[in-house]
């Protein structure tokens, strides 16, 4: 195994074309934000029943994926796996980029985004949201320091420590993200401690899927060598993570199916929920989990970069479906205030709520992906983050 050389990317027409495209997505997102902020949220699909809509699906997907994207770096630094070490810089940048993309969407969907400073100065320490603000900011700072220890030989002695701190921090961070739902006692679909570990495994899966796609795209578009060893190692790990998510999803639903009080919400998600049921079975389970698992491990497709790319993309689609089901489906099912009763009111009590995302919400959501990818592209251009070669003889410690 040779010493890894890192080189900045880009500069060509394709680079600036991609940047322009991402810039256009971001500008569109800003336009959508100004429109919603100026007119008020009545132009969105949200209401007093579905209070968190499409922007939250995008934001939470990106935030969850962000902590998972750091995994590649952690495996190299914390667990000493040599093959992952050259990938650590890209992995850490991707983690920062995805988190900033997600937070951008989250903040711009607030009712009062102009009061962001209030959120930074007034803390209610019983709120997991308040803790998350600290966890997100701390994550950005820690991972930035971690990248610094990888770039600057004068601070290399802190590399291990920074990598370990970032790893522990990211586990706490995703615990916090899952607990946003796990600690909601009011709603039938939430109020389950399993959300914290489930979100951690979801982050492993979504983050690695994005990392694989970004790496393959970067090396393809920059004509740098990318060996099969790296791809094979990552795709096998990705399959394990996808299976892990399936396990947690199965335990969550089986536990709830056992308790009669949860039969209503489970029947809604799994059988009667229309678009939510379809998103669960076809989006999350079939397209987002089983099909990618088959593609990653079947001998006919598991060795093909094309099919590994398709599998990664499907896992991302499945991740969005999963968060759509958790967030919107969980809110669509009515609060159970009077068990055993049929309930009716002028305030949508006792009825299944519906939600149709508006165009500005979707544009804002996609712009979060634009922000993340633009940061990635610019970051790899200005800093030496991407190895000049990930060919097997460079990246594979067992290469002969």
């Amino acid at each position, binding site marked *: 195994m040779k010493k890894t050389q890192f080189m900045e990317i880009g500069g060509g027409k394709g680079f600036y074309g991609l940047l322009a495209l991402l810039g256009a997505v971001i500008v569109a997102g800003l336009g959508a934000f100004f429109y919603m902020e100026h007119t008020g949220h009545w132009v969105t699909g949200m209401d007093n*029943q579905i209070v968190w809509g499409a922007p939250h699906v995008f934001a939470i997907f990106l935030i969850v994926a962000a902590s998972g994207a750091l995994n590649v770096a952690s495996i190299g630094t914390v667990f000493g796996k040599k093959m992952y070490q050259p990938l650590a810089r890209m992995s850490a940048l991707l983690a920062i980029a995805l988190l900033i993309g997600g937070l951008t969407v989250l903040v711009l969907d607030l009712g009062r985004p102009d009061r962001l400073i*209030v959120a930074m100065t*007034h803390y209610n320490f019983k709120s997991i949201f308040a803790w998350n603000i600290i966890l997100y900011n701390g994550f950005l700072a820690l991972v930035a320091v971690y990248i610094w220890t990888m770039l600057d030989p004068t601070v290399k002695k802190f590399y291990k420590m920074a990598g370990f701190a970032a790893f522990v921090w990211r586990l706490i961070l995703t615990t916090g993200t899952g607990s946003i739902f796990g600690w909601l006692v009011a709603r039938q679909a939430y109020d389950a401690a399993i959300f914290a570990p489930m979100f951690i495994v979801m982050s492993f899966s979504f983050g690695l899927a994005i990392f694989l796609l970004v790496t393959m795209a970067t090396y393809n578009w920059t004509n740098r060598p990318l060996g099969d060893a790296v791809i094979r190692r990552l795709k096998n790990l990705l399959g394990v993570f996808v299976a892990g998510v399936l396990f947690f999803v199965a335990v969550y639903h089986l536990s709830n199916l056992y308790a009669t009080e949860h039969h209503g919400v489970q029947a809604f998600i799994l059988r009667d929920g229309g678009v939510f049921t379809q998103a669960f079975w076809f989006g999350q389970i079939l397209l987002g989990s089983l099909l990618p698992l088959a593609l990653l491990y079947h001998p006919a497709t598991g060795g093909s970069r094309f099919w590994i790319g398709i599998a990664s993309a499907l896992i991302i689609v499945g991740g969005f479906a999963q968060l759509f089901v958790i967030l919107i489906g969980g809110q669509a099912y009515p609060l159970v205030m*009077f068990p055993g*009763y049929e309930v009716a009111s002028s305030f949508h009590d006792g009825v299944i709520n519906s939600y149709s995302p508006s165009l500005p919400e979707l544009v804002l959501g996609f712009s979060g992906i634009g922000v993340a990818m633009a940061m990635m592209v610019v970051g790899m251009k200005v800093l030496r983050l991407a190895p000049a070669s990930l060919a097997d003889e460079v990246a594979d410690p067992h290469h002969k």
Partner: protein
Amino acid sequence: MSEHKQPDLARRELLGRGAAMAAAGVTLAPGVMLYGVAQAKPADEPVSSKVRWGMLVDTTKCNSGCNACVEACDKEHGLGNEQHSRDGQRTQYIRKVELRHKFTGATHSLPVMCQHCETPPCVDVCPTGASFKRADGIVLVDRHICIGCRYCMMACPYKARSFVHEALTDQRPHTPRGKGCVESCTMCVHRVDEGREPACVEACAADGSRAIIFGDLNDPNSEIAQRVKTYASSEIRADLGLNTGVRYQGI
């Protein structure tokens, strides 16, 4: 673990017997009591945790189809003036809920609003502390520091909160509603601080139903404290152990 503070009636009865005779409940005839109305505190006096404001809803007196409390609330707080919002986006502080038991067929009609929990989930989850509980048990939103994140709406077990979806004009001075903030029943805190009853309670009484009574749960001589002591009452989602300030009889 926080322990719920229940009024210590025995001690209070002993201490306050003299005062109670003069101010609160006076027996006119057996079974007929004259209760004093809530006393206004001076404006410069801080709110005290000696008081726990609450409401008791007698669902057997609440008529299906009667909307007097809802109309009074809307009028008091200037609700229903949205120009653009869809039906599901408009604010309601209080709504009438119609219940029909799936097995027995029993029906009930009752108002549901913020239940003014002793340990409110909305206050727990609010990142900035905009959702807060006054010492006297009234749960409010500080509209100066609400960032409109809506986590309180996710957390409220009673679906009591609304989000202002558009710019509003001509707000009432005591209910400064604004675009992008979350709001809910204030238990008419502006009236309570003046020694008056909430608008819904007043309207229900004026309508002749008197299904909602308001008072200090900590004052053993108040009608509400006497009623909850004498008759069985319940909380909505009592399983959550939130010790709500709004209680119900008949469900």
